[in-house]
Each structure stands twice: as structure tokens, then as C-alpha cells.
């Protein structure tokens, strides 16, 4: 690690994690889910709520509750608050912001909370979803929607990008089955995943198309729930029974060479067709800050609201070369017992669509040796990888 480079090593750690049940309960309050996650995280960290002096919320109103409502409702009195928009993508960014807050002394213990309720809403893109207007957002929707063309729903951008990816590399799209099938097997080893039924390759092939080439089983099941992660600084972590240190971090990227559901340089939208080289991918800032590369990661969490997304993260973070991930994920490589176990609690595709927070919770459990039947033996280092370029490396204390 360069002396001049940014560093979080030894300055921030995860002290506790909690979650609500994952379900569809339209008559519940989102605050009930939020409360279960917050109090679960406090209990897990051995903290009282009076010790929380920072609060960062992902997903506020209307799917969730905003930071001020959260603080007032639960009797928190944070002196550092922040909130991201009401979509996904920001899990790592929220944790990075919390880490920066504790590293600089802006706060000592930050509760990072993602709570949302979707069961009383239509699907995104439909008129009875509060995000309906976003498909007409100026210069394109948040997932490349163009409602006036009939292009509504995040599924469309993910489907178009996967079509482009398969054509560019002449891939058989059916190879994608490895991802949802692997994550479903992992979910079957949990007691809280919403999708725990058997899924066979035949089930996958037979699933109805939603927006071709994506099928129902390529899309994460939208529901209700909450996850809370508490981040503390050096002193708080030193006194903790099992801190998970944040040793590497990398922010979300944006710009003309990015696409929300594709790798750098895929050729979607106005992207170039210049993919990252293996060297560039293995030289991503997160690996430099952590002082450890992809080959040193014992367990992975990857954003998978749609099943192609992990492919792009594996390529952009140097686990394999550009265009190679569809072959790379075959034959158990990303399954428990494989070389690079990924989304070991089922991910968004099978455990719950919690915008990546479920995977981060699982990485914490893995590093503490608390993952039960899913435990990766002697897991010391874990990585979170977002298709947006956001990433974290966590290490066992």
C-alpha cells in the first residue's frame, strides 16, 4: 500500500449486524422491520442505543423511512446523519461514509440502516409504484428506462446489457443458470431466505420470460425487510469481541463509461467498448487499499438483483478476464466448497432483495465463524463487490 494512498486500515470496523425477517407483509409498518434490524444490531454489538451517535439511512420514504423519522421514532440522538436515495447500489458507499465518519471523529458509532417495504406497491415501472415517474427522468431512467418507448422496469436495462454481453462474447445464455442455481442451494442452508425451494436446471429453463433474455428466476424477489450494520472506530473495535475491520474500500463510479447493470466498457448507452484489462481489474483501488487482491479473498458478496450482474463484478475486479466470467462461474467455483464461495446465504436472488445488505451481513457472519452450515472454513478475508464499482474488503479481527 502506498503511504500516500487513502487508508481505512485500523480506523473502522463493523461492530454489529442485525436483520428483520424477510417476507411480504403488506399490513406491517416499515418501522417494524427497521426496529427489528436496529435492535438486533445493537444487541449483537453489545451496545445501548444511547451510544449511537451517527445514523446513515439507505432507502427513505416512500419505500422506507427517512433518517429524521428513524431517529425520532427509535429515540436516537445522532450528531452525524446522512441518507442515500431510495434505490439500491449504495450499500458499500453507506458503509464507507460511516467508516470515514468514525475515522475522522465525526462520530464514534454509526448505525447504517436499510429498511424497505415493497409488498404494498406495484413493481417498479408500474403506475402504482411511487417510482413510476423515474422512467421519464431527464436523460434516462436510473436503469436506462425510457418509458415513452415502452421501456419501463429495471429488468429491461439488465436484459439489454446481458443480450449485448452474450453477443459480444458469443456466449450461450443458458450458462447463466449456474448463478441462480448456486445461490438457491446456498439459501437452502439458511433459515431466513424467502426462496428456499429446490431449483433445478430444468426449472430455470422453464421459467417464464419477463423481459427476454431474462426470466423470472433471473430477477430477485422484491419484498420487505431491514438490515442494520453498526460501524465504530479504532477504540470501539479494540474493545469488541469480534470486529470485522474495513481494510479496503472503493466508491461507486459514474460517467459515460459506466452502465448500472454492466461492466466498464461494455458498449451500453454511451460507454466505450474498452473493457478493463486483467491488470487494471486486479489493480482496482480496493485491492490496493486492502493490500490484498482477489486471490486472497476467502468469501465474496456480490450485488445480484439480476443474475447476470455477478459476472460483470467478477470481471471488473480481476477474478477472471473480460468476457470469461460465464465460463468461470461453472462447475461449482462460486459455490460453498468451491474456490470462491459467493453469496453464501443466497444473495438477493434467493435470500432476499435487500440491496446487497443481506450479503454484507453474511460476510460478517462468515468472518466471525457464525455462518453455521454455510461456514467457509477459516474465513479471514471477505470482499463485497458491486457492479457499480463499489467494493469493500473486510477482515477478521
Amino acid at each position, binding site marked *: 500500500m502506498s503511504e500516500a494512498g487513502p487508508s481505512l486500515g485500523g480506523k473502522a470496523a463493523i461492530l454489529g449486524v442485525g436483520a428483520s425477517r424477510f417476507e411480504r407483509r403488506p399490513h406491517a409498518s416499515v418501522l417494524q422491520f427497521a426496529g427489528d434490524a436496529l435492535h438486533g444490531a445493537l444487541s449483537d454489538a453489545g451496545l445501548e442505543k444511547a451510544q449511537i451517535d451517527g445514523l446513515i439511512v439507505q432507502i427513505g420514504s416512500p419505500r422506507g423511512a427517512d433518517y429524521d423519522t428513524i431517529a425520532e421514532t427509535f429515540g436516537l440522538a445522532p450528531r452525524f446523519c446522512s441518507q442515500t436515495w431510495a434505490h439500491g447500489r449504495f450499500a458499500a458507499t453507506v458503509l464507507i461514509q460511516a467508516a470515514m465518519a468514525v475515522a475522522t471523529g465525526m462520530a464514534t458509532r454509526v448505525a447504517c440502516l436499510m429498511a424497505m417495504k415493497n409488498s404494498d406497491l406495484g413493481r417498479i415501472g408500474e403506475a402504482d409504484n411511487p417510482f413510476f415517474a423515474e422512467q421519464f427522468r*431527464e436523460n434516462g431512467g436510473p436503469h436506462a428506462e425510457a*418509458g415513452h*418507448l415502452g421501456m419501463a422496469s429495471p429488468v429491461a436495462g439488465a436484459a*439489454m446489457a446481458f443480450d449485448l454481453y452474450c453477443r459480444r462474447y458469443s456466449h450461450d445464455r443458458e450458462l447463466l443458470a449456474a448463478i441462480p442455481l448456486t445461490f438457491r442451494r446456498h439459501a437452502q442452508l439458511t433459515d431466513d431466505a424467502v426462496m428456499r425451494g429446490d431449483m433445478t436446471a430444468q426449472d430455470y429453463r422453464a421459467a417464464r420470460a419477463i423481459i427476454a433474455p431474462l426470466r423470472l428466476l433471473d430477477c430477485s424477489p422484491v419484498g420487505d425487510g431491514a438490515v442494520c450494520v453498526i460501524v465504530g472506530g479504532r477504540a470501539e473495535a479494540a474493545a469488541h469481541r469480534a470486529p470485522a475491520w474495513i481494510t479496503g474500500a472503493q466508491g461507486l463510479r459514474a460517467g459515460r463509461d459506466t452502465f448500472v447493470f454492466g461492466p466498464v466498457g461494455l458498449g451500453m448507452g454511451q460507454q466505450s467498448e474498452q473493457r478493463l484489462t486483467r491488470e487494471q481489474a486486479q489493480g482496482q483501488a480496493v485491492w490496493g487499499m486492502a493490500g490484498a487482491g482477489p486471490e486472497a479473498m476467502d468469501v465474496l458478496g456480490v450485488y445480484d438483483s439480476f443474475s447476470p450482474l455477478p459476472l460483470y463484478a467478477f470481471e471488473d475486479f480481476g477474478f477472471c478476464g473480460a468476457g470469461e466470467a460465464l465460463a468461470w462461474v461453472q462447475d461449482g467455483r462460486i459455490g460453498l466448497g468451491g474456490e470462491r464461495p459467493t453469496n453464501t446465504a443466497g444473495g438477493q436472488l434467493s435470500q432476499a432483495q435487500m440491496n446487497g445488505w443481506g450479503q454484507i451481513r453474511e460476510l460478517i457472519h462468515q468472518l466471525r465463524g457464525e455462518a453455521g452450515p454455510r461456514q467457509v472454513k477459516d474465513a479471514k478475508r471477505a470482499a463485497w463487490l458491486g457492479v457499480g464499482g463499489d467494493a469493500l474488503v473486510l477482515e477478521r479481527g
Partner: protein
Amino acid sequence: MSEPIAPLVNDLNRPFWEAAEAGRLVLPWCPATTQFFWPPSPFSPFGAVAPEWRDAPAGGVLKAMAVYRRAFQKAFEPLMPYGVGLLELDAGPRLQVHISDADAATVGRRASLGFASLLPGGPKVPILGGEGTS
């Protein structure tokens, strides 16, 4: 619940939509780099100068397509199964287009950008046109 389906038209992008109604493709053009670009911006993304709107050739190549098998907007349900495509224009930018007959469209082939009203009384929007190099 009401389901208004219309592109957002404002002072920045109005030239595109007015030309579209007339069946013409105009795109923002950067005088500093002599390139067309997309999406509309008050400053060229390739520099710091104000762009001009110029007529652009409508030919290109269809690079990717996604086909709706489930309706998200009720208004488009009668048009299913329809496609949405990514058209790489010879002029440079890639634009998204509606594809009324997904079975007849071939990804990788030359095509052109046309304009049509998709819904009763609706504005003309970009669609996949036939092969052409205009």
C-alpha cells in the same frame, strides 16, 4: 392510478422532439470536437462549449435488444411482445429505440432510426426503421 406516458420535453431537449414530430433526426453536436453526442447537455461532455443541434444521418447498427413478455405499463400491453433496442448510429451516439416487431428485427444488422407514434395521440418517438444508410 393514472399512467401518463410521455417523454419529458423542456427547453434543453425540445429541438429533438420537435424534429421528431417532423420525422427528422437532430442531435446535439460539439463544435470543439465536431462530434455528435447524446444525451442532451447545455455543455458538450467532450469540452466546455455550448453545443449546436444538427441534422444527423439516421443509419446505424442494432447492437442489442430486449423483448417484453410481461407488461409493466398497461398502455403498452396491447403492443406485446415488443422489443426495445440499442441502435448505434453512424453519427456516433447510441440511442434506444422501440421495436414493434421483435421477431423481424435482427441484432447485428444495419438499420435506421425512424419516428412513430406508439400510443393513440402520443408523440412520435424513436423506433427501429428498416435497413438504410441515409
